[in-house]
């Protein structure tokens, strides 16, 4: 990449009932972030906001976000997609040389304000699928899970184990809204079916929250922190919308996104070179599908990974030590939360969930039904 760009600091909040207005949530979060770095809003040269009109329930969602994030009379723009795209856009703005500092901030209130499954209904093809009511977020995800299980011989117990690991990891994450320190596959099995094989505990919990981070170009980043986290590569790619024309057991677009990011980052063997990954999975089965597409594990190995604990905190490739989307899914801002969790890991601030010696991390974000659109960012403690 033509300049070195780093993440300087991050802040996040998650709740199952935030209890304060969105504007106030954003002000408290961003103000706190500025204070922690010792800067003011005037030190930020470009603000990249991240939210969705249907989640906020407002036309032009960013209108009332501007002043709470400190963007009054400042350069500001807005990405209406998962937060990972917003972070990518902020990175591009810095890479251009036009700016040296950026704030990225995303928010969503799926627990208090909007209904996540309904907002997903609005994504359906309005001329066909939305008219019929057959497809929705849960039925499509269930079909994806079935496709993966059928293709690779993975069973429900193994998916339940994957969910249980995430719930255990979430117990180590102070921000998580749902967790269980001693969760087992049996706990997941005991929760109700929504659509087979999806059980309640294998699905994301409705979550309110926000995530903010400060990005800066090389010199400025080193001035602002002694622990910059460098953005080494990024990419995104998109599959067709039509789930009847995709092999749901694999993710072509996650794979392509990874290839783009790895090329920039000089990663040739992700399973070896990446120390920790934060994958955006709304449902337990999506984690192996995406992890495999990103080359973190062998294709179709989700059952084995679950049985042998390979993705556990102490495993060969820790995935979502934060608990991931099963510990809290701040809808549109979720990709930002994944990046923020990688930053915590690489700055050595992940507490009990710390992956020791983590130097290279991968963050992933998704949009659409069955993760139609995927984005990846590779982060590292090493510059250049």
């Amino acid at each position, binding site marked *: 990449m033509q300049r070195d760009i780093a993440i300087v600091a991050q802040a996040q909040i998650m709740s199952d009932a935030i209890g304060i207005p969105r504007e106030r949530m954003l002000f408290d979060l961003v103000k706190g972030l500025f204070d922690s770095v010792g800067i003011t809003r005037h030190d930020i040269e470009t603000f990249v906001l991240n939210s969705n009109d249907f989640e906020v*329930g407002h036309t032009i969602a*960013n209108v009332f976000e501007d002043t709470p994030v400190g963007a009054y009379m*400042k350069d500001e723009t807005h990405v209406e997609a998962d937060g990972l795209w917003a972070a990518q856009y902020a990175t591009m703005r810095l890479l251009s040389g036009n700016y040296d500092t950026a704030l990225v901030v995303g928010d969503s209130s799926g627990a208090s304000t909007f209904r996540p499954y309904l907002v997903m209904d609005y994504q359906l093809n309005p001329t066909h699928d939305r008219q019929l009511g057959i497809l929705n977020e849960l039925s499509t995800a269930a079909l994806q899970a079935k496709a993966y299980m059928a293709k690779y011989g993975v069973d429900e117990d193994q998916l339940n184990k994957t969910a249980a690991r995430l719930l255990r990891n979430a117990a180590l994450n102070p921000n998580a809204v749902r967790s269980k320190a001693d969760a087992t596959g049996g706990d997941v099995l005991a929760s109700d079916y929504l659509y087979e094989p999806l059980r309640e505990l294998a699905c994301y919990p409705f979550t309110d929250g926000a995530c903010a981070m400060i990005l800066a170009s090389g010199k400025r980043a080193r001035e602002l922190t002694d622990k910059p986290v460098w953005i080494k590569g990024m990419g995104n790619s998109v599959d067709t919308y039509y789930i009847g024309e995709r092999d749901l057991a694999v993710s072509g677009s996650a794979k392509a996104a990874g290839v783009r990011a790895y090329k920039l980052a000089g990663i040739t063997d992700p399973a070896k070179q990446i120390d920790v990954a934060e994958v955006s999975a709304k449902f337990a089965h999506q984690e192996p599908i995406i992890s495999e597409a990103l080359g973190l594990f062998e294709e179709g190995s989700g059952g084995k990974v679950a049985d042998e604990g390979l993705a556990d905190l102490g495993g060969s490739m820790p995935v979502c030590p934060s608990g991931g989307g099963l510990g809290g899914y701040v809808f549109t801002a979720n990709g930002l939360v994944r990046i923020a969790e990688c930053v915590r890991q690489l700055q050595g601030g992940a507490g009990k969930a710390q992956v020791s010696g983590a130097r290279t991390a991968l963050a992933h974000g998704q949009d659409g039904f069955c993760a139609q659109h995927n984005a990846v960012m590779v982060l590292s403690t090493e510059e250049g």
Partner: protein
Amino acid sequence: MRNVGIIGVGYTPVFVSKRKDVNIAEMVSEAVDAAYRNTKLTPDDIEAITFGNMQTFEGVNMPHLWAVDHMRALNKPYMRIATGGTTGMSTLHSAYYHVASGLHDVVMAITWEKQSEGDSQVGLSGIVMPEAMVMVQHGMDLFGGKGMGAMGGGSTGAAAYQATSYLHHSGASPEHIDKMAALERSNAALNPYAHLRKKTSVADIQATPFISWPLRFGHTCPTSDGATVVILASEDKVEKLADSVAWINGVGCACSDPATGNFIEGQITDPAEQEPAKLASAKAYAMAGIKDPAKEIDMAEMYNGFAHQSLMWLEKLRLCKEGEAHKMLDAGALNIDGELPTNASGGVFSTNAIGASAMNRPAECALQIMRKIEGGHQIPKKIKNAVSHGWGGMFQYVTVTVLGDEPRHG
């Protein structure tokens, strides 16, 4: 910094009030087709795509995902941008940064709206719905106008306040609004991609009733169905791929607080102040190396949902001194063959597919620079530098793009 140029533009064949023959994806695909046809490029040449519209105007969440096949975006990097009325230009800026970042060389920006599928008044009211609700809970007299906080301004909303404030501070008269309206409608009559295409006199405008003084029906924009697509390329690729180019030499954007409507948080101030227009244009001019815009800029495309705004923006963007725009209008300087042709296309005021509206401004500048205007509104003089402007959010957000016939230096 890398230089980035616009190498092609594609419009839907028409901008009209209702495209009953096609669905959203089909309509937008027509503009994608046109961009390919006009540049002789194919989807294989495009490395990444940015996409923008105002999704509550059609009630489709993330329409870029459903429409991905029609956008020819499969397996490509793809980014959705939305900033309200400015979405078009914000989407262009995103494409610009895709190239300026060094990550991509050829990028397509797709912007559109199919306003006939929804109700634009409803879409716009969605901006303040919950705040208005809380005000009603506190006794706001929504329609009777008693007490504090009722909006007023009828269906023009706060634009009428903006017009009054502008007229007061500039010394322009309401007749200048009529005159600007007639000029732009007549320009639109020459533009095959304009929606309202009828040569219009000042008397025609003055024959329309007032909605909210000083604004008449004849001062307001239509709602349109249509799409605009632009292809951008890096300096290296321009030579290989394009026979003509308009360089994006400066970009800027800025926001204030919602100057109208958000009564709850005490954010109402002068809707005609528009400080963000000054900030965003200053940034874009500086990037483009433009020191005296009034002298160096050869044409302007201003975002004008209402006819008074063209005049107001010329002043905010320092294309003339404050209070001088209406004098330029009187002197004929804003005509297509004038000193500073302004909205030769007819402006948003004549064509408003809202997600594309702020894209049509730089697209028109690019076509003027490349001398590829179809129809009769080609500006006769050579265009070296052009400025385009987008306005949106809740009266508080501005984008600016400066284009040139030569790339910026340094």
